[in-house]
């Protein structure tokens, strides 16, 4: 299941010209508001027509302006979750969930998820007889996700589904999307301008800036090398796949272990053995040539310098190989020079435990919930 996209359109002063492919898993379209992400989603869903373009999903052409082919929205079988829930106000939650399923009846080529499974997954069993007007923002959005899933889509688009929700509701829905990524067995395209969401969920990142693709590739590399663009460079950092080893007693911390070594992070309340993906912001990583002593920071990982990436703002992102996992640290050019950092040089990487954002830590893709 691969999605190939190539679109161009002009609307007044705004120009969009993007091409990317989304491999299976979750692909994040990342960029500031107004960069053209939602327009890409509208074109994918069939709700907007580009001036020129091609969209192919799993080999089937959904749009080819040169050949005059455009599959209408209702025949694309692309589920879409918008910023607002957009539930049918005159139908109950149960009828909203059944809506897409009714049009997908008789379709046997993709088993998809059964209603019971979706209702359990999203925790909306108690809402079935309610009307959309009586739902909170988070509840409405969960129903909207369920409704899209139950239409047996081949691809699920999520256009900033958390944008209209407060932090608490976001924290409630993020794990659901994580689980969706692992059980839905269809590709997901997730639009966001929040680095923490992207770091937590994405397998692939497509960075869109001013209507163009600024960078695209596996999430891990994009985040580590600071390819998110100038506005988000400060949030560049490594993604590490780790496992919960233990909750450290009386400290409010959880001990994780992985190839890089061990990390103490704020308490996660996850079972021992759960796979966790950790975003380590490069700005919170210090490098030291000697084993540090008398330092408050809890996390010290030893490794060697892998590569140096000078940034536009005069800083340098230093990639450090720690036992096969790559960390990245943002240093000033002066520090790099002073420490004599060159590829191959052994260093210690130091991270404060409080630097980790618990919202940015999710279950690793494909990890088993224990």
């Amino acid at each position, binding site marked *: 299941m691969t999605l190939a996209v190539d679109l161009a359109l002009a609307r007044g002063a705004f120009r969009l010209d993007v091409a990317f492919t989304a491999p299976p898993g979750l692909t994040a379209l990342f960029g500031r508001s107004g960069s053209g992400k939602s327009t890409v989603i509208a074109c994918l869903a069939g709700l907007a027509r580009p001036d020129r373009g091609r969209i192919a999903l799993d080999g089937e052409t959904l749009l080819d302006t040169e050949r005059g082919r455009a599959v209408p929205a209702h025949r694309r079988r692309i589920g879409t979750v918008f910023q607002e829930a957009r539930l049918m106000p005159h139908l109950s939650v149960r009828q909203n969930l059944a*809506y897409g399923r009714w049009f997908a009846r008789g379709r046997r080529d993709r088993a998809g998820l059964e209603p019971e499974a979706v209702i359990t997954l999203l925790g909306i069993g108690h809402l079935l007889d309610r009307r959309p007007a009586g739902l909170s923002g988070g509840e409405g959005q969960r129903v909207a996700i369920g409704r899209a899933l139950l*239409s047996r889509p081949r691809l699920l688009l999520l256009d900033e589904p958390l944008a209209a929700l407060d932090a608490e509701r976001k924290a409630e829905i993020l794990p659901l999307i994580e689980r969706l990524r692992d059980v839905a067995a269809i590709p997901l395209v997730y639009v966001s301008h929040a680095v923490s969401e992207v770091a937590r969920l994405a397998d692939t990142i497509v960075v869109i800036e001013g209507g163009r693709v600024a960078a695209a590739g596996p999430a891990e590399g994009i985040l580590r090398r600071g390819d998110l663009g100038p506005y988000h460079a400060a949030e560049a950092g490594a993604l590490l796949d780790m496992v919960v080893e233990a909750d450290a007693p009386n400290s409010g911390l959880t001990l994780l272990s992985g190839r890089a070594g061990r990390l103490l992070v704020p308490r996660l309340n996850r079972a021992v053995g759960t796979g966790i993906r950790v975003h380590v912001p490069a700005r919170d990583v210090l490098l030291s040539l000697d084993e540090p002593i008398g330092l408050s920071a809890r996390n010290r990982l030893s490794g060697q310098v892998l590569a140096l990436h000078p940034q536009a703002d005069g800083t340098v992102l230093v990639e450090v190989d720690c036992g096969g996992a790559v960390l990245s640290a943002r240093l000033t050019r002066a520090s790099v020079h002073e420490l004599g950092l060159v590829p191959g040089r052994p260093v210690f990487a130091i991270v404060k435990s409080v630097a980790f954002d618990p919202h940015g830590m999710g279950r690793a893709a494909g990890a088993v919930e224990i």
Partner: protein
Amino acid sequence: MSAAILDRLGLSPEEWSAIALSLRVAGVATLASLGPGLAVAWVLARRRFPGRALLDGLVHLPLILPPVVTGYLLLLAFGRRGTFGAVLADLGIVLSFRWTGAALACAVMGFPLMVRAMRLSLEAVDARVEQAAATLGAGPCAVFLTVTLPLALPGVLAGAVLAFAKAMGEFGATITFVSNIPGETQTLPSAIYTLTQVPGGEAGALRLTLVSVAISMAALLVSELLARRVGRRIGAG
């Protein structure tokens, strides 16, 4: 049964026939306008095309023209020698000086009111919900029937009731187009008018006036009740 009611109200058979005819004419006019009215309202609410302003003006014309003028134009077009009338006559359909012609006149006069109410309620339907329905697999027809129409229903009902009320009261265009033939084209307003023109007709005119008021009030009440029920179903419930 009907004889008993007739006795109690003190209505003469002629008066009774005018009431029955008016109800039939207004009912047929309203039902026949529903489809075209909804289609025109949807086009005006949702489509942008050259000639849209012209269509809008054409629909509203009967509202601002003197009814007599509308009736005369209908006579020119649908009379036996009229452009459409001759073609229809060949097919065996005669409108001029028949109750069907009265229904046509009433439908034309009520059309702008019906379209206006329907259009406003269609414009109020959130197009984003319709888009969501399309992404769930609903084609344009299915979107209209399952999302647009149910959400616009209060306005559609209001439009139908307005058209019905207008048809019950239509006088000028009707009398010009189909005249005032008792039992065939003499509707309630025509009958009242006739009664006021003959000596001793005041009592009959008053009786019919009361009936007319009662029918209008009943229509308004029914539409209010329906709208409230629909509103509860759609709304904050």
